[in-house]
């Protein structure tokens, strides 16, 4: 059945196209400009074509401390990701029924999103200052990141469990599954894809986090802080080369997550039903 599309469809398609151009245009410019020739500048036109600026990033006169800060952000991102997935999951499980203080906890978690990041940064910095503890990305930085990633993970889990059909669990219990078995063999496989989503949020939000890290990472910079430092004193396309690399890394993580999602869905479809197949 093909109805004729209204004129508004074409206007909106054009608008959407412009929006996509708006989203991706600037970043593609960075991508191209990072391959500037050795004498090229920060703007077009391209002055030759080379991978000079990528070498400059790793080369002798290292611009900033890019490699260690990248490794730091990577580790922190993975730790935050793991913690976000596990904690969001167990919190989501708890929220499937009302308990004393559930509203308070819900609104505190939402508040964690709403409170301006600079306050979280300042507040944690103050506590560590007053207690005479040393701020470090593994302690204060980790905590600050979790205040940003946990609400996303938590809200996703709440949304997931709100749509969760409880009859699957009841069926499992009727068949004699224990609580633990029900969760491992019924609940987790069903919500698996959402957990991948939570993991993606946990990693990327931490990997790119700036404002909450500002006062909480101590003397050792995470990658976004390092990049920010570079914006004030680097005036060569090295900056773009770094931008290209981290963007590709982010894209790699996103594609990995989507790959896993796709794999899970395929597996779920092929294992979907064993009704009538005997055991």
């Amino acid at each position: 059945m093909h109805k004729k599309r209204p004129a508004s469809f074409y206007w909106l398609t054009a608008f959407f196209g412009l929006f996509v151009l708006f989203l991706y245009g600037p970043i593609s410019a960075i991508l191209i400009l990072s391959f500037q020739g050795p004498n090229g500048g920060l703007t077009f036109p391209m002055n030759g074509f080379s991978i000079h600026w990528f070498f400059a990033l790793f080369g002798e006169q290292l611009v900033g401390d890019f490699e260690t800060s990248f490794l730091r952000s990577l580790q922190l991102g993975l730790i935050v990701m793991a913690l976000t997935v596990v904690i969001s999951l167990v919190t989501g499980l708890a929220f499937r029924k009302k308990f004393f203080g559930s509203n308070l906890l819900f609104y505190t978690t939402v508040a964690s999103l709403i409170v301006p990041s600079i306050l979280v940064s300042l507040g944690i910095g103050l506590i560590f200052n007053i207690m005479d503890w040393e701020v470090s990305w593994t302690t204060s930085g980790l905590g600050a990141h979790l205040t940003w990633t946990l609400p996303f993970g938590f809200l996703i889990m709440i949304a997931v469990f709100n749509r969760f059909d409880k009859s699957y669990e009841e069926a499992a219990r009727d068949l004699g599954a224990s609580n633990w078995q029900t969760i491992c063999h019924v609940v987790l496989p069903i919500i698996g894809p959402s957990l991948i989503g939570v993991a993606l949020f946990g990693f990327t939000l931490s990997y790119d986090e700036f404002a909450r890290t500002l006062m909480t990472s101590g003397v050792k910079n995470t990658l976004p802080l390092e990049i920010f430092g570079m914006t004030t004193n680097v005036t060569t396309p090295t900056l773009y080369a770094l931008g290209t690399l981290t963007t590709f890394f982010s894209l790699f993580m996103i594609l990995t997550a989507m790959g896993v999602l796709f794999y899970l869905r395929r597996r779920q479809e092929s294992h979907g039903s064993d009704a009538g197949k005997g055991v």
Partner: protein
Amino acid sequence: MDHKSPLSTLLQISPISLILGFFLVLPIGTILIVSFWDYNDFSFFPDFVWTNYSDALGSNVTYKTYLNTFWYAGLTWLFTFLIGFTVAYFLAFHIHTTRWQIVLFLICTIPFWTSNIIRMISWIPFLGRNGVFNTMLQSIGLIDEPLEFLLFSDFSIVLAFVHLYALFMVVPIFNSMMRIDRSLIEAAIDGGAHGWQMLTNVVIPLCKPGIAIGSIFVVTLVMGDYITVRLMGGGQRASVGVMMWNEISLLLYPAAAAHAVVLLAVVLIMVSLIVRVVDLKKEL
């Protein structure tokens, strides 16, 4: 039928409670306390003085800075709303297959998962004196001199905000639109509603929750922003975040704390005004 004991619930919620307790609630409490402390050139120390607040609220600079920040927030809200609503409407009502909806939705979402700072920097080759826009406008003879206001200005700041945060409007509004019962739309059309009437009388009222959630995100992100204004304003523009950060880097912690408390109050008032429209919990 419930198999869960209070103990297992307690175990399940303790990690998040401890983390938010220590890294969110306690820090805000500390800010509140320190905002009454006193300081000199070298350190800050326990006291109970109102001077931090009287300094903050008695200064014209504070009001100007807030006005400026409201201006950024207002403009960013307006543009992200217009863009977000249009994009969400297109995805929800003009794309009919789920597969395409997912594909197009992902195309909008991917930039959100990349670095904000890189996304800001990526405007520099476009907006600079010798940037793409100026070169283009000059080559078609629209202007003789390069436009100076494009980069390191209010224009570039708001542009970057819209670029960074448009998605925060698209997602919740799209979510609301997908929940609208399609028969309501058909009923409106059968009842003789034109496109525009359907939009204002059916779609927009039913999207209010999504619009509210998107607005909360955009407004709070802009109000507390430090880095976008710093980077895209070239260090020449003021916002509440920049003002606070200047005090922090001068180690004037109690003064920064007082500003932080005021900012928090302002943000909470703005959020509570928006929340009046919507029951957040129902939306999940």
